[in-house]
């Protein structure tokens, strides 16, 4: 009778409900905690958010299932459990970025006394195999973790049949029906292909493919100005490939534009070619096998052509909602971008259906926010928590050849919110010690801290461009979370000699007009 009472609270009253309850009563005992449905929680999508939510719910004693399925890319690339981050995002990206950085360090090593033979060659195949092996070990690790936490995993493609039921289809075409009391949609997104460019789909690849290529991509054209475009172009250049970036307008839309400009300036100075203000119109395959790309310069209207081995589209990502049959469940999406509309509880238009991660509207497309949101959601559903996910002041880093770490507001956002008169920006150009002996150009190594002008000058945003930006920014994110003020920053002693200490040593404001270049100690 207790199980029946619980069902009464969670289901809306209606004739079908009455019929089901009788059947459910008999089965209820056999299903244990799940009661009326197969599972307490069904998570659609086995990526950063989905897995975190499922594991947390299982730890809280619930009967949980995860369904994960990867539609092959147009090129045919597919991958295992773990989602975008593990397979075609953060992990392989950072490893290839590291491969590129190492190339630079090997060159630096000479200045430090190492006898390094010239020329230094890079073998794509060796790197790709190592990266792919690591990713596969993570796929395995995730499967083992689900097993350990007693989360049921199905490699099936899911779509809604009704608000509590999902149909899953295996690769071979076999169908199953799964029902759950709560459902979490965490299907993430996939790269967008340009709609009106002839040959784009046939001949181009995306980030879904680049990390799984067995052979080197060779001379590459990266189309896009997103961090995906710049990071990929960055490591391709770093491992010695002829790389060009084609951008329609501004780089890193949404990020602080002064910093974005410095990021691309560094890439230009280090061998990446940029075609700014251009859009591709056509991609054709030449008899040699190479690709011929035709593009237009938007300013002059002139057309131009170029030959490449690979064309990588990095023009944005679209949420994976098309094949979910969301209408069958009554889950609403943003008509402009197909992302699922959610409230602060991560709930969709249907109370017991939630959405987290990249698929949800208005959320940062980042792994750590998806993970945290997933865990907090499980805690709210099954633990005694009421804590909501805080999406403010989320730190992040763009892993371009010179890395850009940031947390909080960009200068533009701060000025828009508080007015120019109420914002003070402290900044500095610095030179990492390691660059000196290596004779590296540090022209773009720059930091700026955006603060409120009124004392104690609350820190609104921090922007760091330099080596190990991710490592540097992480600690300062805690400071901002705790409401650090510029006064406190001034009172913080730096660690010497590091690049991070330059943050604590910021003293020159933009307003003063003084030269922000840091001199030696």
């Amino acid at each position, binding site marked *: 009778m207790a199980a029946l009472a619980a069902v009464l609270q969670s289901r809306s009253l209606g004739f079908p409900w009455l019929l089901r309850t009788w059947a459910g009563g008999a089965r209820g005992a056999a299903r244990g905690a799940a009661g009326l449905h197969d599972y307490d929680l069904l998570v659609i999508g086995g990526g950063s958010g989905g897995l975190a939510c499922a594991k947390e719910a299982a730890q809280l004693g619930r009967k949980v299932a995860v369904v994960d399925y990867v539609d092959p890319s147009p090129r045919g690339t597919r991958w295992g459990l773990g989602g975008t981050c593990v397979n075609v995002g953060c992990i392989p990206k950072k490893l290839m970025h590291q491969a590129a950085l190492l190339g630079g360090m090997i060159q630096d090593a000479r200045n430090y006394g190492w006898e390094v033979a010239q020329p230094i060659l890079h073998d794509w195949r060796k790197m790709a195999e190592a990266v792919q092996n690591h990713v*596969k070990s993570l796929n395995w690790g995730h499967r083992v973790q689900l097993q350990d936490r007693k989360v049921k995993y199905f490699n099936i493609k899911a779509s809604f049949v009704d608000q509590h039921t999902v149909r899953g289809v295996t690769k071979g075409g076999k169908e199953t029906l799964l029902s759950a009391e709560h459902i979490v949609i965490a299907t993430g997104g996939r790269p967008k292909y340009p709609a009106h460019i002839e040959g784009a789909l046939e001949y181009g690849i995306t980030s879904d493919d680049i990390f799984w290529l067995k052979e080197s991509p060779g001379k590459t054209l990266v189309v896009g100005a997103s961090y995906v475009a710049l990071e990929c172009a960055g490591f391709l250049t770093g491992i010695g490939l002829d790389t060009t970036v084609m951008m329609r307008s501004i780089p890193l839309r949404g990020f602080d534009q002064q910093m974005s400009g410095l990021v691309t300036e560094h890439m230009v100075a280090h061998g990446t070619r940029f075609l700014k203000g251009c859009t591709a119109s056509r991609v054709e395959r030449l008899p040699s096998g190479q690709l011929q790309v035709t593009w237009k310069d938007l300013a002059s209207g002139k057309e131009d052509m170029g030959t490449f081995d690979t064309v990588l589209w990095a023009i944005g990502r679209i949420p994976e909602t098309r094949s979910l049959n969301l209408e069958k469940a009554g889950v609403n999406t943003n008509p402009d971008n197909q992302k699922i509309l959610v409230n602060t509880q991560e709930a969709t238009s249907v109370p017991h259906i939630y959405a987290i991660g990249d698929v949800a509207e208005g959320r940062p497309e980042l792994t750590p926010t998806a993970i945290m949101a997933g865990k907090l959601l499980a805690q709210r559903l099954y633990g005694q928590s009421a804590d909501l996910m805080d999406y403010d002041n989320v730190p992040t880093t763009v892993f371009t050849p010179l890395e850009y770490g940031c947390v909080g507001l960009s200068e533009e956002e701060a000025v828009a919110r508080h007015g120019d008169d109420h914002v003070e920006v402290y900044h500095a150009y610095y030179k990492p010690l390691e660059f000196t002996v290596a004779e590296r150009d540090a022209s773009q190594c720059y930091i700026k801290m955006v603060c409120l002008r009124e004392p104690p000058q609350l820190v609104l945003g921090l922007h760091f461009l330099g080596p190990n930006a991710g490592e540097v920014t992480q600690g300062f994110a805690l400071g901002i979370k705790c409401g650090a003020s510029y006064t406190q920053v001034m009172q913080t002693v730096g660690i010497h000699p590091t690049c991070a200490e330059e943050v604590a040593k910021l003293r020159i404001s933009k307003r003063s007009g003084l030269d922000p270049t840091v001199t030696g100690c």
Partner: protein
Amino acid sequence: MFLKAAGSKLVVIEFTAKWCGPCKRISPLIHAMSLQYKDVIFANVDVDESQELAETYNIKAVPTFQLFKQTRTVNLFSRIKSALCCNRSGLMTTPIFEMCGADVKTLEAKIRELM
């Protein structure tokens, strides 16, 4: 079943994966052992290709070595018992020894001890 066919010989099952570096490194050493210890049966299971098997034997990491040996003596009485009671106690469903990692020296010592 494979384990049943081994009779009273020691069986060494190596659980590996194609993406596992240490597995590749010790592969020639394991192969050499299989030639050296002719009375021991060596077999390999790829955890990605045989997912259910890996799950059944609770494999958490690779490489994992599981050693099996039929400890019960098989006679007419136990055969009748097995047939009547569907008793699986004669078969090996739990390993007598398990080792995770690529420590070939320890593995070889254990093999020599148990064979």
